[in-house]
């Protein structure tokens, strides 16, 4: 099965990181990404620019409406994702638990829909 692992974290905490903190985080993510590439689970994955760069789009009555920023105000924001292949939910939970962001943020696991 394929699962999308969505990493949520507090952006305000992220902005407080100093250079050493950023370097450490980047190294941790690099190591995790390498580990799931080597184990054959990795399909895709990226970090995202902060929510200050986000645009939300809706179409109402045929008109495109855009708003600045994310749809809802929350404590944690989507910061990145991995798309992985995993045998079952337990394997996906195990992988999600190794994502560096799981230690201070949270990772939501969603099975990817299969179209038949």
């Amino acid at each position, binding site marked *: *099965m394929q699962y999308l692992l969505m990493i949520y974290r507090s952006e305000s905490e992220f902005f407080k990181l100093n250079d050493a903190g950023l370097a450490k985080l980047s190294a941790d993510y690099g190591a995790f990404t390498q580990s799931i590439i080597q184990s054959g689970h990795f399909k895709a994955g990226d970090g995202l620019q902060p929510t200050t760069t986000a645009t939300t789009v809706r179409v109402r009555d045929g008109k495109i409406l855009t708003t600045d920023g994310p749809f809802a105000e929350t404590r944690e924001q989507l910061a990145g994702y991995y798309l992985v292949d995993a045998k*079952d*939910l337990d394997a996906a939970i195990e992988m999600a638990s190794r994502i560096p962001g799981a230690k201070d943020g949270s990772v939501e696991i969603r099975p990817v829909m299969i179209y038949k």
Partner: protein
Amino acid sequence: MTSAEIEKIFRDETGRALATLIRLVGDFDLAEDALQEAFAAALERWPRTEMPANPRAWLVSVARNKAIDRIRRQIAFREKQPELTHEALLDAEIVPEENGAALDDDMLRLIFTCCHPSFAAEVQVALTLRTVCGLTTAQVARAFLVGEEAMAQRLVRAKQKIRLAGIPYEVPEREALGLRLRGVLAVIYLVFTEGYVATSGEALMRPDLAREAIRLARLLDALMPGRREVKGLLALMLLHDARRAGRQTEGGEIVLLEEQDRALWDQAQITEGLRLVEEALQLPGRPEAYAVQAAIAALHARAPNFQDTDWKQIAGLYEVLLRISPSAVIELNHAAAVSMVDGPARALDLIDALQARGGLDGYELLPAVRADLLRRLGRDRAAREAYLAASAATQLEPLRRLYARRLAELGP
């Protein structure tokens, strides 16, 4: 053979039949639907013909064929054959083996799936009661005090999640086992508790649920020997269940511990429970909640009568429990034990202090415990009020009748 007798067989066999079917057909929903069809076939056939020698094997075999029919129809309907259904079809051609160990493994797989931590706790219990214990959706709904419709919805969503989220149908690997086991034990104990004192209805006990919980704990103890928490829980349930015959009159009236005829207690079960408590307490590690509760039950089981019970040690063990796993139930039980050591006034102080802190809000046994203490203190008017509150708080008829008897004894 009456339909009531057939219903009972369905209840007894659902868990194991379903567990095996899920393995055979590889799909939770398909297995459940097929089993329902097999039940319908049995209701049709059994009253007219002779009962099959092995009803479960009959149900599994009929349900398996129903499932194969469905898969064939699906395959004919769609042109392509998804790998999963194809595999399921191949597996389903194998005749189910009546091998005890394989059936036990099926049951364990089903339990670990129903108790998967990605479900909310109440969903785990509901799924286990419905699928492992074979309760109807209506019975599960009653156990949760929700409507049948809402419970049916909850179960459908849970089964959808098993399939869509890829929750594995297997016993977890060694390293994840400890954590997962804790969740399973919590569910088993909840099932037992419902069997020991039912939430609502006419009967105080549901011995079938208690038996099912004990059976599941035995299975776990066999599969994972040397686990204190499993031995502790098994011992606890055995020792409590051993008092069953003494806990009510033939007419279904509650007999409290202090009035029970201890000759009615199941001595063989007590012996087994006591041995398991010893084993659990001797295994290395910090005090474990189930084992400590079992140690308390063991002190009751060993006592010649209510008065000569080692209340001091029992109160002490409840204090240990309050440190390692505090809860409203433990607080109340501790107070009840203290009432036997230091008297009811001291116990009432404890409870009132707790209540003032809001620690017992909405806990339905609170008024009953207070009522008993007030009665022993001779504070009849306050006791009356507490018994009335206790009666209003319960949905269990034998408990209501017990409170009514107490009220009658207290006089107007």
